[in-house]
């Protein structure tokens, strides 16, 4: 099995065996692990084959890529150097990135990655590290470089994985949300917050618009990127500032619509599976799902097989995404 929940003891054993691991876990759990061939981000929420959605401060989620990669290295970037992340990826392989939530590097990547000069030239998948929701404001998300023992609060760690010549990496998205039939919403600036919105071209107070129309902010704004639905999740309305805040930036000129409601997450998810990856899930090496899907769809104890993995504060499939499941397939070539 490539992805599984492990006790600290089992994780230690795999590290000692020299396995190459992508890990997720609570900070206290990750700090108990020895140096080795691993990279990790903090998060205590997971979806497993055995138990479905769960939260644990003692267990770690492991994706073992030892048997599919030819070579790996770990690179560290900051907000000033991250523009090189695509170009410096392996020529035949993939890059796996983890960035701490709310760090300057997270914000820089969210806003700027689509404009990096070599956007998308090499596969880039990953996630945004977080914390237990009870720890918000008390602890900071972190990423761990198992090779060096470094713990990073601001920066991005990237595991650059070279694949054997007969293997090929491809990245996919499963998004339960589609654009609804309502107004076309656009913005005059890029950013994580906005006071104003253009509703069908007419400037309006965004918070007042949401309240007047009783729009459910659990449902994201959805943009159509040449057939790919990209969500912008609502963080909330800051009444003191009079702004609407998001978990990912809106971009000027993009046409957003409020999402259609999803009545039954698990049923819709299974339908999406068939549509998005043709049911051939044996090739899935890694996947992660958004914590907003976990919370709003009450996934604790529910299974989303065959897609399991960490439950994250943001997903990366070439660029930052929200309320989405992203996955990496490695296929014979």
């Amino acid at each position, binding site marked *: 099995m490539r992805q599984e929940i492990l006790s600290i003891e089992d994780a230690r054993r795999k590290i000692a065996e020299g396995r190459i691991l992508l890990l997720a876990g609570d900070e206290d759990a990750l700090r108990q692990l020895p140096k080795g061939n691993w990279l990790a981000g903090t998060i205590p929420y997971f979806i497993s084959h055995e138990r479905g959605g769960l939260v644990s401060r003692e267990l770690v989620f492991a994706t073992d890529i030892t048997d599919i990669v030819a070579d790996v290295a770990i690179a560290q970037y900051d907000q000033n150097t991250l523009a090189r992340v695509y170009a410096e990826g392996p020529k035949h392989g993939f890059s796996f990135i983890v960035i701490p939530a709310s760090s300057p590097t997270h914000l820089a990547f969210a806003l700027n990655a689509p404009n990096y000069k070599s956007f998308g030239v090499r596969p880039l998948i990953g996630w945004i590290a977080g914390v237990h929701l009870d720890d918000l404001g008390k602890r900071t998300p972190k990423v761990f470089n198992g090779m060096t023992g470094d713990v990073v609060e601001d920066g991005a760690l990237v595991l650059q994985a070279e694949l054997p010549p007969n293997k090929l990496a*491809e990245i*996919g998205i499963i998004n339960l949300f589609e654009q609804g039939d309502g107004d076309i919403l656009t913005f005059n600036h890029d950013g994580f917050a906005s006071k104003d919105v253009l509703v069908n071209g007419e400037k309006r107070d965004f918070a007042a618009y949401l309240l007047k129309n009783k729009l459910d902010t659990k449902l994201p704004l959805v943009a159509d990127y040449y057939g*790919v639905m990209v969500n912008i999740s609502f963080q909330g309305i800051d009444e003191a500032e009079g702004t609407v805040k998001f978990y990912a930036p809106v971009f000027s000129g993009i046409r957003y619509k409020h999402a259609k409601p999803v009545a039954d997450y698990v049923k819709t998810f299974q339908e999406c599976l068939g549509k998005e990856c043709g049911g051939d899930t044996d090739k899935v090496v890694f996947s992660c799902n958004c914590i907003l899907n976990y919370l709003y769809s009450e996934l604790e104890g529910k299974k989303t097989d065959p897609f399991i993995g960490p439950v994250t504060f943001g997903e990366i499939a070439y660029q930052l995404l929200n309320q989405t499941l992203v996955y990496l397939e490695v296929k014979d070539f």
Partner: protein
Amino acid sequence: MDVPSKSNKGWQDIVTGKKTYTLKFLAAKILLGRLTRSIKDNPSPDNVSSGVEQLHNLLAQNAHVPSVQEDLKTIFG
């Protein structure tokens, strides 16, 4: 299929939105979502040329990927 040269008119047609296609390669779809918007806002020759350059570079560097090969067939026949 070989990647057509940047002078092929098909590149301009796709980045300007004159022609649209149902593509498979995720990175190309995300990039085109941005390029077509940018070029609609600013259809100057320089911006169109920059868009062609970016899309050509993305597909040329991934020309071995099956979904890219399918997309090239879809665009250029």
